[in-house]
Protein backbone atom coordinates (compact mmCIF):
# COMPACT_ATOMS: atom_id res chain seq x y z
CA UNK A 1 0.00 0.00 0.00
CA UNK A 2 2.64 2.47 1.09
CA UNK A 3 6.19 1.93 0.03
CA UNK A 4 8.93 4.20 1.25
CA UNK A 5 12.43 3.94 -0.15
CA UNK A 6 15.58 5.55 1.24
CA UNK A 7 13.62 8.65 2.16
CA UNK A 8 15.68 11.63 3.24
CA UNK A 9 14.77 15.21 4.08
CA UNK A 10 17.23 17.96 4.90
CA UNK A 11 16.50 21.47 6.07
CA UNK A 12 18.85 24.40 6.16
CA UNK A 13 18.30 26.55 9.20
CA UNK A 14 20.62 29.52 9.62
CA UNK A 15 23.22 27.95 7.35
CA UNK A 16 23.19 24.74 9.35
CA UNK A 17 22.07 21.56 7.68
CA UNK A 18 19.55 19.54 9.65
CA UNK A 19 18.61 16.03 8.61
CA UNK A 20 15.00 15.60 9.71
CA UNK A 21 14.40 12.25 8.03
CA UNK A 22 17.42 10.05 7.43
CA UNK A 23 17.32 7.10 5.05
CA UNK A 24 13.96 5.63 5.96
CA UNK A 25 12.84 2.53 4.11
CA UNK A 26 9.66 0.71 5.04
CA UNK A 27 6.49 -0.82 3.68
CA UNK A 28 3.01 -0.48 5.13
CA UNK A 29 0.39 -3.05 4.22
CA UNK A 30 -3.16 -2.36 3.09
CA UNK A 31 -5.56 -2.17 6.01
CA UNK A 32 -2.80 -1.92 8.57
CA UNK A 33 -2.65 0.52 11.48
CA UNK A 34 0.98 1.56 11.56
CA UNK A 35 2.39 3.68 14.35
CA UNK A 36 5.53 5.79 14.38
CA UNK A 37 6.67 6.78 17.83
CA UNK A 38 9.39 9.21 18.77
CA UNK A 39 10.16 12.12 21.05
CA UNK A 40 9.65 15.64 19.73
CA UNK A 41 12.34 16.56 17.26
CA UNK A 42 12.77 12.95 16.14
CA UNK A 43 11.54 13.87 12.66
CA UNK A 44 8.17 12.15 12.75
CA UNK A 45 6.19 15.29 11.82
CA UNK A 46 8.36 15.79 8.76
CA UNK A 47 8.08 12.08 7.98
CA UNK A 48 4.27 12.09 7.88
CA UNK A 49 4.24 15.29 5.78
CA UNK A 50 6.45 13.58 3.23
CA UNK A 51 3.75 10.96 2.80
CA UNK A 52 1.14 13.36 1.38
CA UNK A 53 3.53 15.74 -0.32
CA UNK A 54 3.19 18.62 2.15
CA UNK A 55 6.97 18.31 2.20
CA UNK A 56 9.07 17.13 -0.72
CA UNK A 57 11.98 14.81 0.04
CA UNK A 58 15.61 15.72 -0.59
CA UNK A 59 16.04 12.21 -1.94
CA UNK A 60 14.24 8.90 -1.90
CA UNK A 61 10.72 7.97 -2.90
CA UNK A 62 7.21 7.49 -1.54
CA UNK A 63 4.69 5.29 -3.34
CA UNK A 64 1.09 5.13 -2.20
CA UNK A 65 -1.24 2.76 -3.97
CA UNK A 66 1.25 2.50 -6.81
CA UNK A 67 1.41 6.29 -7.25
CA UNK A 68 4.73 8.02 -6.81
CA UNK A 69 3.87 10.72 -4.29
CA UNK A 70 7.28 12.23 -3.94
CA UNK A 71 8.18 14.72 -6.65
CA UNK A 72 4.54 14.98 -7.71
CA UNK A 73 3.33 18.48 -8.47
CA UNK A 74 0.34 20.62 -9.39
CA UNK A 75 -2.97 19.09 -10.36
CA UNK A 76 -1.84 15.46 -10.13
CA UNK A 77 -0.62 16.02 -6.55
CA UNK A 78 -3.87 17.75 -5.60
CA UNK A 79 -5.90 14.88 -7.06
CA UNK A 80 -3.75 12.29 -5.30
CA UNK A 81 -4.04 14.10 -1.95
CA UNK A 82 -7.79 13.56 -1.95
CA UNK A 83 -7.11 9.87 -1.37
CA UNK A 84 -4.55 10.40 1.39
CA UNK A 85 -6.17 12.50 4.06
CA UNK A 86 -4.87 13.79 7.33
CA UNK A 87 -6.06 14.51 10.86
CA UNK A 88 -4.23 16.94 13.10
CA UNK A 89 -3.25 17.45 16.72
CA UNK A 90 -5.05 20.81 16.85
CA UNK A 91 -7.87 19.65 14.55
CA UNK A 92 -7.39 22.58 12.13
CA UNK A 93 -11.08 23.13 11.53
CA UNK A 94 -12.37 26.28 9.88
CA UNK A 95 -13.99 28.25 12.69
CA UNK A 96 -16.09 30.19 10.19
CA UNK A 97 -17.89 27.01 9.12
CA UNK A 98 -20.36 24.79 10.94
CA UNK A 99 -19.72 21.10 11.56
CA UNK A 100 -21.47 20.05 8.35
CA UNK A 101 -19.82 22.81 6.32
CA UNK A 102 -16.42 21.74 7.61
CA UNK A 103 -17.08 18.15 6.60
CA UNK A 104 -18.35 19.33 3.20
CA UNK A 105 -15.18 21.33 2.52
CA UNK A 106 -13.08 18.51 1.00
CA UNK A 107 -16.11 17.51 -1.08
CA UNK A 108 -16.31 21.07 -2.43
CA UNK A 109 -12.63 20.82 -3.31
CA UNK A 110 -13.27 17.53 -5.12
CA UNK A 111 -16.16 19.12 -7.04
CA UNK A 112 -18.92 16.90 -5.62
CA UNK A 113 -22.44 18.17 -6.42
CA UNK A 114 -24.48 19.89 -3.72
CA UNK A 115 -27.08 17.12 -3.30
CA UNK A 116 -24.46 14.40 -3.08
CA UNK A 117 -22.45 16.50 -0.63
CA UNK A 118 -25.46 16.73 1.65
CA UNK A 119 -26.01 12.94 1.65
CA UNK A 120 -22.36 12.14 2.20
CA UNK A 121 -22.09 14.65 5.05
CA UNK A 122 -25.11 13.17 6.81
CA UNK A 123 -23.60 9.67 6.59
CA UNK A 124 -20.26 10.88 7.90
CA UNK A 125 -21.87 12.70 10.82
CA UNK A 126 -23.57 9.46 11.75
CA UNK A 127 -20.35 7.47 11.33
CA UNK A 128 -18.46 9.64 13.81
CA UNK A 129 -21.42 10.04 16.17
CA UNK A 130 -22.09 13.77 15.90
CA UNK A 131 -25.84 13.66 15.26
CA UNK A 132 -27.55 16.80 16.51
CA UNK A 133 -24.40 18.95 16.28
CA UNK A 134 -24.54 19.55 12.51
CA UNK A 135 -25.18 23.29 12.81
CA UNK A 136 -22.73 23.92 15.65
CA UNK A 137 -19.56 25.94 15.12
CA UNK A 138 -16.19 24.46 16.18
CA UNK A 139 -16.00 26.93 19.08
CA UNK A 140 -19.09 25.28 20.55
CA UNK A 141 -17.57 21.79 20.52
CA UNK A 142 -15.35 19.90 22.96
CA UNK A 143 -11.90 18.69 21.91
CA UNK A 144 -13.14 15.18 21.29
CA UNK A 145 -16.03 16.41 19.17
CA UNK A 146 -13.66 18.61 17.18
CA UNK A 147 -11.48 15.62 16.39
CA UNK A 148 -14.58 13.68 15.32
CA UNK A 149 -15.29 16.48 12.83
CA UNK A 150 -11.64 16.24 11.75
CA UNK A 151 -12.01 12.50 11.19
CA UNK A 152 -15.31 12.87 9.30
CA UNK A 153 -13.71 15.56 7.14
CA UNK A 154 -10.73 13.31 6.45
CA UNK A 155 -13.00 10.44 5.40
CA UNK A 156 -15.21 12.55 3.13
CA UNK A 157 -13.46 11.70 -0.12
CA UNK A 158 -13.21 7.99 0.74
CA UNK A 159 -9.44 7.93 1.08
CA UNK A 160 -7.19 4.88 0.90
CA UNK A 161 -4.94 6.17 3.66
CA UNK A 162 -5.57 8.19 6.79
CA UNK A 163 -2.59 9.99 8.30
CA UNK A 164 -2.77 10.95 11.98
CA UNK A 165 -0.46 13.76 13.10
CA UNK A 166 -0.46 13.45 16.90
CA UNK A 167 -4.22 13.14 16.55
CA UNK A 168 -4.91 12.50 20.23
CA UNK A 169 -2.11 14.47 21.87
CA UNK A 170 -4.34 17.45 22.70
CA UNK A 171 -7.07 15.29 24.26
CA UNK A 172 -7.58 14.03 27.78
CA UNK A 173 -7.08 10.27 28.40
CA UNK A 174 -10.75 9.34 28.28
CA UNK A 175 -11.40 11.24 25.06
CA UNK A 176 -8.19 9.80 23.61
CA UNK A 177 -9.56 6.29 24.16
CA UNK A 178 -12.88 7.17 22.54
CA UNK A 179 -11.14 8.62 19.48
CA UNK A 180 -8.81 5.61 19.25
CA UNK A 181 -11.83 3.28 19.37
CA UNK A 182 -13.36 5.28 16.53
CA UNK A 183 -10.16 4.91 14.47
CA UNK A 184 -10.13 1.14 15.01
CA UNK A 185 -13.79 0.99 14.03
CA UNK A 186 -13.10 2.93 10.83
CA UNK A 187 -10.09 0.76 10.06
CA UNK A 188 -12.12 -2.42 10.46
CA UNK A 189 -15.30 -1.23 8.76
CA UNK A 190 -13.83 0.68 5.83
CA UNK A 191 -10.51 -1.11 5.52
CA UNK A 192 -8.59 2.17 5.48
CA UNK A 193 -4.85 2.03 6.08
CA UNK A 194 -3.93 4.27 9.00
CA UNK A 195 -0.52 5.76 9.72
CA UNK A 196 -0.15 7.50 13.06
CA UNK A 197 2.67 9.46 14.56
CA UNK A 198 2.68 9.95 18.30
CA UNK A 199 4.82 10.31 21.36
CA UNK A 200 2.37 8.35 23.48
CA UNK A 201 3.06 4.63 23.87
CA UNK A 202 -0.53 4.23 24.96
CA UNK A 203 -1.75 5.05 21.44
CA UNK A 204 0.59 2.49 19.88
CA UNK A 205 -0.36 -0.17 22.39
CA UNK A 206 -4.06 0.36 22.01
CA UNK A 207 -4.58 0.36 18.27
CA UNK A 208 -1.44 -0.27 16.21
CA UNK A 209 -0.53 -3.52 14.50
CA UNK A 210 3.05 -2.53 13.87
CA UNK A 211 5.27 0.18 15.26
CA UNK A 212 8.40 1.97 14.14
CA UNK A 213 10.53 3.81 16.68
CA UNK A 214 12.11 6.97 15.37
CA UNK A 215 15.13 8.75 16.76
CA UNK A 216 17.15 11.56 15.15
CA UNK A 217 15.44 11.01 11.80
CA UNK A 218 16.09 7.28 11.65
CA UNK A 219 13.87 4.29 12.23
CA UNK A 220 15.85 2.51 14.95
CA UNK A 221 13.44 -0.30 15.62
CA UNK A 222 10.41 -1.73 13.89
CA UNK A 223 8.10 -4.70 14.24
CA UNK A 224 4.86 -6.05 15.59
CA UNK A 225 3.76 -4.06 18.60
CA UNK A 226 3.81 -7.07 20.92
CA UNK A 227 7.30 -8.13 19.79
CA UNK A 228 8.71 -4.67 20.27
CA UNK A 229 7.07 -4.45 23.69
CA UNK A 230 8.33 -7.80 24.79
CA UNK A 231 11.82 -7.37 23.54
CA UNK A 232 12.83 -3.75 23.10
CA UNK A 233 16.37 -3.48 21.72
CA UNK A 234 17.23 0.20 21.65
CA UNK A 235 17.41 2.38 24.73
CA UNK A 236 14.87 4.80 23.28
CA UNK A 237 12.42 1.93 22.78
CA UNK A 238 13.01 0.74 26.31
CA UNK A 239 12.20 4.20 27.56
CA UNK A 240 8.94 4.21 25.62
CA UNK A 241 8.01 0.74 26.83
CA UNK A 242 8.69 1.80 30.39
CA UNK A 243 6.11 4.59 29.90
CA UNK A 244 3.56 1.81 30.04
CA UNK A 245 5.08 -0.71 32.38
CA UNK A 246 5.95 2.09 34.73
CA UNK A 247 9.05 0.22 35.90
CA UNK A 248 11.28 3.22 35.46
CA UNK A 249 9.22 6.24 36.18
CA UNK A 250 6.10 5.39 38.11
CA UNK A 251 5.80 4.58 41.77
CA UNK A 252 8.82 2.92 43.37
CA UNK A 253 12.05 3.65 41.61
CA UNK A 254 14.51 0.81 41.33
CA UNK A 255 16.85 2.35 43.88
CA UNK A 256 14.11 2.41 46.46
CA UNK A 257 13.31 -1.20 45.71
CA UNK A 258 16.88 -2.23 46.34
CA UNK A 259 16.91 -0.32 49.59
CA UNK A 260 13.75 -2.04 50.72
CA UNK A 261 14.84 -5.52 49.69
CA UNK A 262 18.50 -5.88 50.59
CA UNK A 263 18.50 -9.68 50.41
CA UNK A 264 17.18 -12.04 47.73
CA UNK A 265 16.64 -11.08 44.11
CA UNK A 266 14.39 -8.69 42.27
CA UNK A 267 13.13 -10.26 39.10
CA UNK A 268 11.22 -8.58 36.33
CA UNK A 269 8.86 -10.95 34.59
CA UNK A 270 7.46 -10.08 31.20
CA UNK A 271 4.32 -11.91 30.16
CA UNK A 272 2.94 -11.94 26.68
CA UNK A 273 -0.35 -13.29 25.45
CA UNK A 274 -2.14 -16.03 27.35
CA UNK A 275 0.59 -16.55 29.93
CA UNK A 276 -0.67 -13.54 31.83
CA UNK A 277 -3.54 -15.71 32.92
CA UNK A 278 -1.52 -18.72 34.16
CA UNK A 279 -0.78 -19.14 37.86
CA UNK A 280 2.98 -18.88 37.52
CA UNK A 281 3.67 -17.46 40.96
CA UNK A 282 1.66 -20.20 42.65
CA UNK A 283 3.70 -22.86 40.90
CA UNK A 284 6.89 -21.08 41.84
CA UNK A 285 6.16 -21.11 45.53
CA UNK A 286 4.88 -24.68 45.52
CA UNK A 287 7.85 -26.13 43.67
CA UNK A 288 10.73 -24.23 45.18
CA UNK A 289 11.76 -23.26 48.68
CA UNK A 290 11.44 -19.57 48.06
CA UNK A 291 9.21 -16.78 49.17
CA UNK A 292 7.85 -14.53 46.46
CA UNK A 293 6.16 -11.19 46.84
CA UNK A 294 4.90 -8.90 44.16
CA UNK A 295 6.54 -5.49 44.32
CA UNK A 296 5.15 -3.89 41.23
CA UNK A 297 2.91 -4.96 38.40
CA UNK A 298 1.28 -3.75 35.25
CA UNK A 299 -0.81 -5.29 32.48
CA UNK A 300 -1.69 -3.71 29.15
CA UNK A 301 -4.11 -4.77 26.47
CA UNK A 302 -2.64 -4.56 22.98
CA UNK A 303 -4.33 -5.40 19.70
CA UNK A 304 -2.62 -8.84 19.64
CA UNK A 305 -3.26 -9.80 23.25
CA UNK A 306 -2.32 -8.77 26.75
CA UNK A 307 1.17 -7.81 27.77
CA UNK A 308 2.37 -7.39 31.31
CA UNK A 309 5.31 -6.94 33.57
CA UNK A 310 5.68 -7.93 37.15
CA UNK A 311 8.51 -7.20 39.51
CA UNK A 312 8.78 -9.99 42.05
CA UNK A 313 11.02 -10.22 45.03
CA UNK A 314 12.23 -13.77 45.54
CA UNK A 315 14.07 -14.71 48.68
CA UNK A 316 15.51 -17.99 49.86
CA UNK A 317 18.61 -20.11 49.49
CA UNK A 318 20.89 -19.18 46.60
CA UNK A 319 20.42 -22.52 44.87
CA UNK A 320 16.65 -22.38 45.19
CA UNK A 321 16.55 -18.93 43.64
CA UNK A 322 18.70 -20.21 40.81
CA UNK A 323 16.39 -23.13 40.16
CA UNK A 324 13.35 -20.92 40.34
CA UNK A 325 14.86 -18.70 37.66
CA UNK A 326 15.53 -21.68 35.43
CA UNK A 327 11.91 -22.75 35.87
CA UNK A 328 10.69 -19.34 34.81
CA UNK A 329 12.87 -19.38 31.70
CA UNK A 330 11.70 -22.90 30.81
CA UNK A 331 8.05 -21.82 30.64
CA UNK A 332 8.86 -19.09 28.17
CA UNK A 333 8.28 -16.13 30.42
CA UNK A 334 10.95 -13.55 30.03
CA UNK A 335 12.70 -13.23 33.39
CA UNK A 336 15.33 -10.63 34.01
CA UNK A 337 17.23 -10.24 37.25
CA UNK A 338 17.36 -6.57 38.10
CA UNK A 339 20.67 -5.44 39.43
CA UNK A 340 21.67 -2.38 41.34
CA UNK A 341 24.36 -1.25 38.91
Amino acid at each position, binding site marked *: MISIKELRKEFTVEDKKIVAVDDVTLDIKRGEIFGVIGYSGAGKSTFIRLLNGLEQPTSGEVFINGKRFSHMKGESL*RQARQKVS*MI*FQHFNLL*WSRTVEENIAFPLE*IAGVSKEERYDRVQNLIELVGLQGREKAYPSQLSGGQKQRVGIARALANEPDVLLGDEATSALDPETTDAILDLLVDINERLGITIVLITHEMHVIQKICHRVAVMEAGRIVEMGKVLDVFQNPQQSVTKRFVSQLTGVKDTLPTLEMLFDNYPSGSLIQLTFVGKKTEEPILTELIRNFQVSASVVHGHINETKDGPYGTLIVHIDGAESQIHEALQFLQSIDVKAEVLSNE
Partner: protein
Amino acid sequence: MNEQTSNETTSFIEQIFPNVDWGQMWEATYETLYMTALSTVFTFIFGLVIGLLLFLTAPHNLWANRIVHFLTGAFVNIFRSIPFIILIILLIPFTKLIFGSIRGANAALPALIIGAAPFYARMVLIALREIDKGVIEAAKSMGAKTSTIIWKVLIPESRPALISGITVTSVALVGYTAMAGVIGAGGLGHLAFLYGFQRNRPDVTLVATIIILFIVFFIQWLGDTISAKVDKR
Protein backbone atom coordinates in the same frame (compact mmCIF):
# COMPACT_ATOMS: atom_id res chain seq x y z
CA MET B 1 -51.19 74.32 16.58
CA ASN B 2 -48.78 71.92 14.90
CA GLU B 3 -47.75 74.50 12.36
CA GLN B 4 -47.10 76.99 15.09
CA THR B 5 -44.81 74.56 17.00
CA SER B 6 -42.91 73.71 13.88
CA ASN B 7 -42.50 77.38 13.08
CA GLU B 8 -41.23 78.01 16.58
CA THR B 9 -38.73 75.15 16.27
CA THR B 10 -37.51 76.46 12.95
CA SER B 11 -37.01 79.91 14.31
CA PHE B 12 -35.22 78.48 17.35
CA ILE B 13 -32.76 76.62 15.10
CA GLU B 14 -32.34 79.76 13.02
CA GLN B 15 -31.55 81.65 16.18
CA ILE B 16 -28.64 79.48 17.25
CA PHE B 17 -27.38 78.74 13.71
CA PRO B 18 -28.14 82.06 11.96
CA ASN B 19 -25.72 81.57 9.07
CA VAL B 20 -26.46 77.94 8.15
CA ASP B 21 -27.92 77.42 4.71
CA TRP B 22 -29.58 74.02 5.21
CA GLY B 23 -29.92 73.19 1.55
CA GLN B 24 -26.20 73.76 1.12
CA MET B 25 -25.49 71.76 4.27
CA TRP B 26 -27.42 68.69 3.04
CA GLU B 27 -25.74 68.89 -0.31
CA ALA B 28 -22.34 68.94 1.39
CA THR B 29 -23.37 66.00 3.58
CA TYR B 30 -24.41 64.06 0.50
CA GLU B 31 -21.05 64.80 -1.14
CA THR B 32 -19.17 63.62 1.92
CA LEU B 33 -21.22 60.41 2.10
CA TYR B 34 -20.72 59.86 -1.64
CA MET B 35 -16.94 60.29 -1.46
CA THR B 36 -16.65 58.14 1.69
CA ALA B 37 -18.82 55.32 0.37
CA LEU B 38 -17.19 55.07 -3.04
CA SER B 39 -13.64 55.40 -1.78
CA THR B 40 -14.34 52.79 0.95
CA VAL B 41 -15.58 50.29 -1.64
CA PHE B 42 -12.55 50.75 -3.89
CA THR B 43 -10.13 50.87 -0.97
CA PHE B 44 -11.57 47.56 0.22
CA ILE B 45 -11.06 45.92 -3.17
CA PHE B 46 -7.57 47.27 -3.87
CA GLY B 47 -6.43 46.90 -0.26
CA LEU B 48 -7.59 43.29 -0.18
CA VAL B 49 -5.79 42.47 -3.41
CA ILE B 50 -2.55 44.17 -2.32
CA GLY B 51 -2.79 42.62 1.17
CA LEU B 52 -3.30 39.14 -0.28
CA LEU B 53 -0.38 39.68 -2.64
CA LEU B 54 1.84 40.75 0.28
CA PHE B 55 0.76 37.71 2.29
CA LEU B 56 1.02 35.11 -0.46
CA THR B 57 4.40 36.27 -1.80
CA ALA B 58 6.01 36.30 1.67
CA PRO B 59 8.78 33.74 2.25
CA HIS B 60 7.54 30.14 2.74
CA ASN B 61 4.06 31.05 1.56
CA LEU B 62 2.02 29.78 -1.38
CA TRP B 63 3.41 32.20 -3.98
CA ALA B 64 6.70 32.95 -2.21
CA ASN B 65 8.45 35.47 -4.45
CA ARG B 66 11.12 37.77 -3.12
CA ILE B 67 10.91 40.36 -5.91
CA VAL B 68 7.13 40.75 -6.06
CA HIS B 69 7.00 40.85 -2.27
CA PHE B 70 9.65 43.55 -2.10
CA LEU B 71 8.04 45.70 -4.80
CA THR B 72 4.56 45.43 -3.29
CA GLY B 73 5.93 46.23 0.14
CA ALA B 74 7.81 49.24 -1.21
CA PHE B 75 4.70 50.54 -3.02
CA VAL B 76 2.65 50.23 0.17
CA ASN B 77 5.25 51.94 2.30
CA ILE B 78 5.80 54.82 -0.10
CA PHE B 79 2.13 55.70 -0.48
CA ARG B 80 1.47 55.19 3.18
CA SER B 81 4.15 57.67 4.19
CA ILE B 82 3.17 60.55 1.88
CA PRO B 83 1.00 63.01 3.85
CA PHE B 84 -2.48 63.02 2.36
CA ILE B 85 -2.59 66.73 1.58
CA ILE B 86 0.63 66.37 -0.44
CA LEU B 87 -0.64 63.22 -2.14
CA ILE B 88 -3.65 65.16 -3.45
CA ILE B 89 -1.36 67.76 -4.99
CA LEU B 90 0.97 65.12 -6.45
CA LEU B 91 -1.97 63.35 -8.04
CA ILE B 92 -3.40 66.44 -9.75
CA PRO B 93 -2.04 65.52 -13.23
CA PHE B 94 -3.30 61.93 -12.83
CA THR B 95 -6.75 63.12 -11.73
CA LYS B 96 -6.94 65.56 -14.64
CA LEU B 97 -6.13 62.71 -16.99
CA ILE B 98 -8.99 60.55 -15.67
CA PHE B 99 -11.74 63.06 -14.94
CA GLY B 100 -10.63 66.03 -17.01
CA SER B 101 -10.98 68.26 -13.95
CA ILE B 102 -9.64 68.49 -10.42
CA ARG B 103 -12.82 69.90 -8.94
CA GLY B 104 -15.82 68.05 -7.55
CA ALA B 105 -16.38 64.90 -5.52
CA ASN B 106 -15.22 62.47 -8.22
CA ALA B 107 -11.90 64.24 -8.54
CA ALA B 108 -11.14 63.47 -4.90
CA LEU B 109 -11.53 59.71 -5.41
CA PRO B 110 -8.09 58.82 -6.88
CA ALA B 111 -6.29 60.53 -4.03
CA LEU B 112 -8.62 59.03 -1.41
CA ILE B 113 -8.21 55.49 -2.77
CA ILE B 114 -4.48 55.68 -3.41
CA GLY B 115 -4.00 57.18 0.04
CA ALA B 116 -6.14 54.63 1.88
CA ALA B 117 -5.63 51.36 -0.02
CA PRO B 118 -1.99 50.82 1.11
CA PHE B 119 -3.06 51.56 4.68
CA TYR B 120 -5.83 48.98 4.44
CA ALA B 121 -3.48 46.52 2.70
CA ARG B 122 -1.32 46.50 5.86
CA MET B 123 -4.38 45.75 7.94
CA VAL B 124 -5.33 42.94 5.56
CA LEU B 125 -1.83 41.52 5.93
CA ILE B 126 -2.13 41.57 9.73
CA ALA B 127 -5.55 39.89 9.52
CA LEU B 128 -4.23 37.14 7.23
CA ARG B 129 -1.21 36.49 9.44
CA GLU B 130 -3.57 35.84 12.33
CA ILE B 131 -5.01 32.81 10.54
CA ASP B 132 -3.86 29.53 12.01
CA LYS B 133 -1.20 28.04 9.70
CA GLY B 134 -2.61 24.61 10.45
CA VAL B 135 -5.90 25.45 8.75
CA ILE B 136 -4.08 26.40 5.54
CA GLU B 137 -2.04 23.21 5.80
CA ALA B 138 -5.24 21.20 6.28
CA ALA B 139 -6.74 22.73 3.14
CA LYS B 140 -3.55 21.89 1.23
CA SER B 141 -3.66 18.33 2.51
CA MET B 142 -7.17 18.00 1.06
CA GLY B 143 -5.85 18.97 -2.35
CA ALA B 144 -7.14 22.57 -2.42
CA LYS B 145 -5.96 24.92 -5.15
CA THR B 146 -4.53 28.31 -4.16
CA SER B 147 -7.66 30.05 -5.44
CA THR B 148 -9.79 27.77 -3.23
CA ILE B 149 -7.55 28.55 -0.28
CA ILE B 150 -7.97 32.30 -0.92
CA TRP B 151 -11.76 32.27 -1.32
CA LYS B 152 -12.71 29.52 1.12
CA VAL B 153 -10.04 29.74 3.80
CA LEU B 154 -8.11 33.03 3.88
CA ILE B 155 -10.98 35.47 3.35
CA PRO B 156 -13.70 33.73 5.45
CA GLU B 157 -11.31 32.95 8.30
CA SER B 158 -10.10 36.56 8.54
CA ARG B 159 -13.52 38.17 8.03
CA PRO B 160 -13.92 39.86 11.45
CA ALA B 161 -10.48 41.48 11.21
CA LEU B 162 -11.04 42.48 7.57
CA ILE B 163 -14.28 44.17 8.56
CA SER B 164 -12.94 45.99 11.60
CA GLY B 165 -9.99 47.06 9.43
CA ILE B 166 -12.20 48.56 6.73
CA THR B 167 -14.22 50.28 9.48
CA VAL B 168 -11.12 52.05 10.79
CA THR B 169 -10.06 52.88 7.23
CA SER B 170 -13.51 54.23 6.37
CA VAL B 171 -13.47 56.51 9.42
CA ALA B 172 -10.05 57.76 8.33
CA LEU B 173 -11.50 58.34 4.85
CA VAL B 174 -14.18 60.64 6.32
CA GLY B 175 -11.32 62.73 7.63
CA TYR B 176 -9.53 62.58 4.28
CA THR B 177 -12.65 63.78 2.43
CA ALA B 178 -12.70 66.85 4.66
CA MET B 179 -9.11 67.55 3.70
CA ALA B 180 -9.85 66.95 0.03
CA GLY B 181 -12.71 69.41 0.42
CA VAL B 182 -10.26 72.18 1.16
CA ILE B 183 -8.74 71.94 -2.32
CA GLY B 184 -12.16 72.01 -3.95
CA ALA B 185 -13.68 68.54 -3.79
CA GLY B 186 -16.82 69.74 -2.01
CA GLY B 187 -18.35 68.07 1.03
CA LEU B 188 -18.59 69.08 4.66
CA GLY B 189 -14.89 69.87 5.01
CA HIS B 190 -15.11 72.27 2.12
CA LEU B 191 -18.19 73.92 3.62
CA ALA B 192 -16.66 74.24 7.07
CA PHE B 193 -13.44 75.70 5.72
CA LEU B 194 -14.77 78.02 3.06
CA TYR B 195 -18.02 79.25 4.63
CA GLY B 196 -17.35 78.58 8.28
CA PHE B 197 -13.71 79.48 8.80
CA GLN B 198 -12.86 81.93 6.04
CA ARG B 199 -16.08 83.94 6.44
CA ASN B 200 -15.96 83.68 10.21
CA ARG B 201 -19.27 81.85 10.70
CA PRO B 202 -18.50 79.41 13.53
CA ASP B 203 -22.08 78.02 13.55
CA VAL B 204 -21.52 76.58 10.05
CA THR B 205 -18.32 74.88 11.21
CA LEU B 206 -20.10 73.54 14.28
CA VAL B 207 -22.99 71.99 12.34
CA ALA B 208 -20.61 70.47 9.77
CA THR B 209 -18.58 68.96 12.62
CA ILE B 210 -21.66 67.52 14.31
CA ILE B 211 -22.76 65.86 11.07
CA ILE B 212 -19.27 64.41 10.52
CA LEU B 213 -19.39 63.04 14.08
CA PHE B 214 -22.69 61.30 13.34
CA ILE B 215 -21.29 59.80 10.14
CA VAL B 216 -18.23 58.49 11.99
CA PHE B 217 -20.32 57.05 14.84
CA PHE B 218 -22.62 55.35 12.37
CA ILE B 219 -19.73 53.78 10.41
CA GLN B 220 -18.12 52.53 13.61
CA TRP B 221 -21.41 51.08 14.89
CA LEU B 222 -22.10 49.36 11.57
CA GLY B 223 -18.58 47.91 11.40
CA ASP B 224 -18.66 46.63 14.99
CA THR B 225 -22.07 45.04 14.48
CA ILE B 226 -21.14 43.19 11.30
CA SER B 227 -17.75 42.14 12.66
CA ALA B 228 -19.36 40.68 15.80
CA LYS B 229 -22.01 38.90 13.74
CA VAL B 230 -19.55 37.07 11.49
CA ASP B 231 -17.18 36.15 14.31
CA LYS B 232 -17.93 32.54 15.28
CA ARG B 233 -14.72 31.95 17.22
